[in-house]
């Protein structure tokens, strides 16, 4: 397997995929902000969808939401009107993460990425921590239903 260094440009397929997923599946525009390195930033969320990445690169991608925007976005996605988290909301967050990761891997064919099943975390003010020895990129998104973050960690396979 050829060694490919993981760079910021490898985050672009995830950004594009998030924009397309929101436009096509949720029916709203998700505008990406500036990509930055997560480093030691302490970021708290209320619900997060996490997908593991493996194959020619190892990593993880997560979509992380405050409660209000998670409810409004998933309500729009499902055509529902929930005022609090329920199993449908949780499924919708997992499904969104799944679609984003599934489409992004098509833009990263050099890594031959395979995706895991989603895990969804619910809990006020939780943090998602990626391994320290891997660069984690964070992209803030704004939508008419509120904000969320997309985080990507990626490490290429052993040379």
């Amino acid at each position: 397997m050829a060694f490919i260094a993981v760079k910021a440009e490898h985050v672009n397929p995830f950004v594009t995929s998030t924009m397309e997923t929101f436009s096509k599946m949720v029916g709203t525009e998700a505008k990406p902000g500036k990509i930055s390195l997560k480093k030691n930033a302490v970021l708290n969320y209320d619900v997060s969808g996490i997908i593991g990445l493996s194959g020619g690169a190892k990593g993880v991608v997560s979509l992380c939401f405050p409660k209000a925007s998670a409810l409004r976005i998933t309500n729009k996605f499902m055509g529902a009107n929930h005022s609090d988290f329920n199993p449908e909301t949780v499924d919708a967050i997992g499904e969104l993460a799944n679609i984003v990761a599934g489409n992004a891997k098509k833009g990263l064919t050099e890594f031959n990425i395979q995706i895991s099943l989603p895990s969804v975390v619910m809990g006020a003010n939780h943090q998602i921590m990626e391994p320290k020895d891997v660069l984690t990129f964070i992209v803030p998104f704004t939508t008419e239903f509120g904000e969320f973050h997309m985080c990507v960690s990626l490490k290429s396979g052993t040379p």
Partner: protein
Amino acid sequence: MAVSIKVEHINPFILATIETFKTMMKLEVKPGKVTLERRTGFQSDLSGIIGLSGGAKGSVSMTFPKITALKVVSAFIGEKVVTMDDGVVDAIGELANIVAGAAKKDLVKYNISISLPTVVVGDNHELSGAKEVTPMYVPFETPLGNFNLVVSFKSEIA
């Protein structure tokens, strides 16, 4: 309709957990009654999550109450830790990584590859799996406290 995980898929993860605690921490851990549930209401403070892909798709998580996590990590790194810090987070991720890595050796025909670990830090959070697969929850008893192993696993390979 969600498919159920099979016993032959879960056993390697249970055995890997028992072996990992035995070899890395000299601790005997006992698996309790396995339950199949979308959500248990089981709340944790620290969870290590690993994604599985390849010939099977899934995820494996180890979820801990804070006190148990601190004691388990102390035993794991051989040094007493009393506060939640980056070292504790890394150790929980590493533990999940070791368990997933050991389990995949018993699931060779699925040619599983594992993702990087993610660790969730947050009082009273709850983990849920994918819609299409009902995750399996295994409570573990240890002398240091209890924790849960949560496995989702789906494969087209018979």
